[in-house]
């Protein structure tokens, strides 16, 4: 009776789950459909296959410079926020220190803070201290919002490390740095790579902070935002979006692969995803 009930319940839930996934993926699936559609109007029925919109992407200099700006910002952001993430995650998992909860709370705050608040507060300060808006100011903002994500990933890596592994290395004659380099680093490396990839992705896709802080060099999302006003540009935007989404998904799959490899390397069992 109970088993039958549970099975029926499971089937109902499964149908719901599939519908929900369809809802989640609908926009992303439609993106390439229209990116390859031979029509400037984004509507069904489809009129024919074309790669014209992708070709057009090749000769828009403003787009190229936006891509370069975004790449530059994303790479620097990924490096800095992962570095800051390593410090904080290591401190939080290995040591006890005064006001730990409060300090970590403030560091993780951007995770729930509306981005517009982060954006305007940084804007106010930068303008007041006379810091000119540029890629640097975007990086400063992006590091702030990426670091909590890096910490969330790296926490998992550092947490599953047995403290005695490090002590064992020291006991066997290694210095503190040797223990870190030979034992800790190899074990958390997959987490570090995952963290780099995630921070890179967030920075590449982030719009609001870049919108407020980017000055004269727009990032890719800011450039995209500008293009949305021109209906005739929509298919090109779709093509660009397709490339971005595919790139994001690939990077995320790569990050997840690294994270899981880290788990497997330690012989542990997997306990969830990024958040």
């Amino acid at each position, binding site marked *: 009776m109970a088993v039958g009930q549970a099975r029926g319940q499971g089937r109902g839930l499964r149908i719901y789950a599939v519908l929900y996934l369809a809802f989640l993926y609908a926009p992303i699936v439609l993106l390439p459909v229209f990116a390859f559609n031979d029509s400037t109007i984004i509507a069904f029925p489809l009129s024919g296959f074309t790669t014209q919109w992708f070709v057009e992407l090749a000769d828009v200099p403003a787009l190229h410079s936006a891509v370069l700006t975004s790449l530059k910002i994303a790479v620097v952001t990924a490096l800095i926020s992962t570095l800051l993430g390593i410090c904080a995650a290591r401190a939080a998992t290995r040591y006890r220190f005064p006001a730990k909860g409060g300090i970590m709370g403030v560091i993780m705050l951007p995770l729930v803070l509306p981005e517009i608040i982060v954006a305007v507060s940084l804007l106010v300060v930068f303008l007041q201290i006379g810091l000119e808006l540029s890629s640097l100011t975007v990086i400063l903002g992006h590091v702030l919002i990426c670091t909590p994500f890096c910490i969330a990933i790296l926490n998992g890596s550092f947490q599953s490390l*047995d403290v*005695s592994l490090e002590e064992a290395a*020291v*006991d066997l*004659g290694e*210095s503190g740095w040797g223990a870190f380099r*030979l*034992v800790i680093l190899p074990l958390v490396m997959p987490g570090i790579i995952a963290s780099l990839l995630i921070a890179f992705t967030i920075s590449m896709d982030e719009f609001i902070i870049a919108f407020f802080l980017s000055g004269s060099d727009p990032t890719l999302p800011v450039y995209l935002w500008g293009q949305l006003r021109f209906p005739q540009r929509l298919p090109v935007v779709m093509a660009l979006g397709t490339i971005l989404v595919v790139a994001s998904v690939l990077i995320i799959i790569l990050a997840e692969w690294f994270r899981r490899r880290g788990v497997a390397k*330690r*012989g542990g069992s997997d306990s969830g995803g990024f958040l």
Partner: protein
Amino acid sequence: MSALIALNGAQKYFGAYHALRDIDLEIGQGEFFSLLGPSGCGKTTLLRAIAGFEALDAGSIHIDGHDMAGVPANRRPTNMVFQSYAIFPHLSVAENVAFGLRKRGLDAKTQAERVGGALEMVGLGGYGARAAHALSGGQRQRVALARALVLEPKVLLLDEPLSALDRKMREQMQGELRRLQRHVGITFILVTHDQEEALIMSDRIAVMFEGGIAQIDSPEGLYRRPASREVGAFIGQMNFLAGQVRSGTDGFVAQIHGLGHVPLAAEQSAEPLAAGAAAFGMRPESLSLLFDGQAQAASEATGRIADRAYYGDMTYYEVALDGVAEPVTISMKNMVGQPVLSVGDAARVAWDPRALIVFPGPGTA
């Protein structure tokens, strides 16, 4: 026996918590020494202080005549087998064992030989290429042993190395560890909360309570001559009977409630005998039940079976002696043709006065 390890007045605080209280201890070359006590007694802290993972707040540790103050763990002649084994999961078995040899400047061939030899010694010959995380609990422990012993330390420190193993495996490893220690001749210091394990394996045992050492002795010494009621109760089982020590004409006499009085010998007390209230300790096997038809014993009492636990080879009886408030525990070997008494049965109890141990002070336990 010259002391390989000497601790003098060792003190350690964790905040307000007094983890080590004035520890004086000497451990000889080639000894198998155990630190035994309940969890939180400071035994692991003491081990970690010797290893160099905890700095003392006062007192000193000397190893082989050298003061260890300020010497970090990586430069001490000690190696440790961790409770969790701490096998590096990203390295193979051989790489784990070779970890500490990296800085010894050995050529590849010598290193491989020593790693192979160490693995052979712990019964893992041929396992070198295995991934560390694919090993069983017992195998991980052997790798941890090989990894520490390959460095030929003066002292091997073992932090509850058997607690993660199941019972069968634990008993097997107890024997193997003991044989290994005799084979290599290195001083072993074992931390354990399992008194049976300590008794089986050790040359000497330090019993620790609340940061201090209560008694250091051989296993037999601890069992037969516990220095305090706490030690007596912690090592094996012990009944405590209330009574008085009185001075008689031929020396001291024990007057025990419900059992009458018997003469005492000096070696029955850790401290010099003196008149006054006392608790008299008695192991369950020092008391026995007399069955119908058995001759009267020199010292005999009567009572009633209050409870019993049947263990197959043994039966443990709780017997309420006439005129004694607390029931006493009596262990009996189950012999063929000998009955197992039931709860409520009348019991004749024989006891050996020479097995009494005197603990001065009032009360029972």
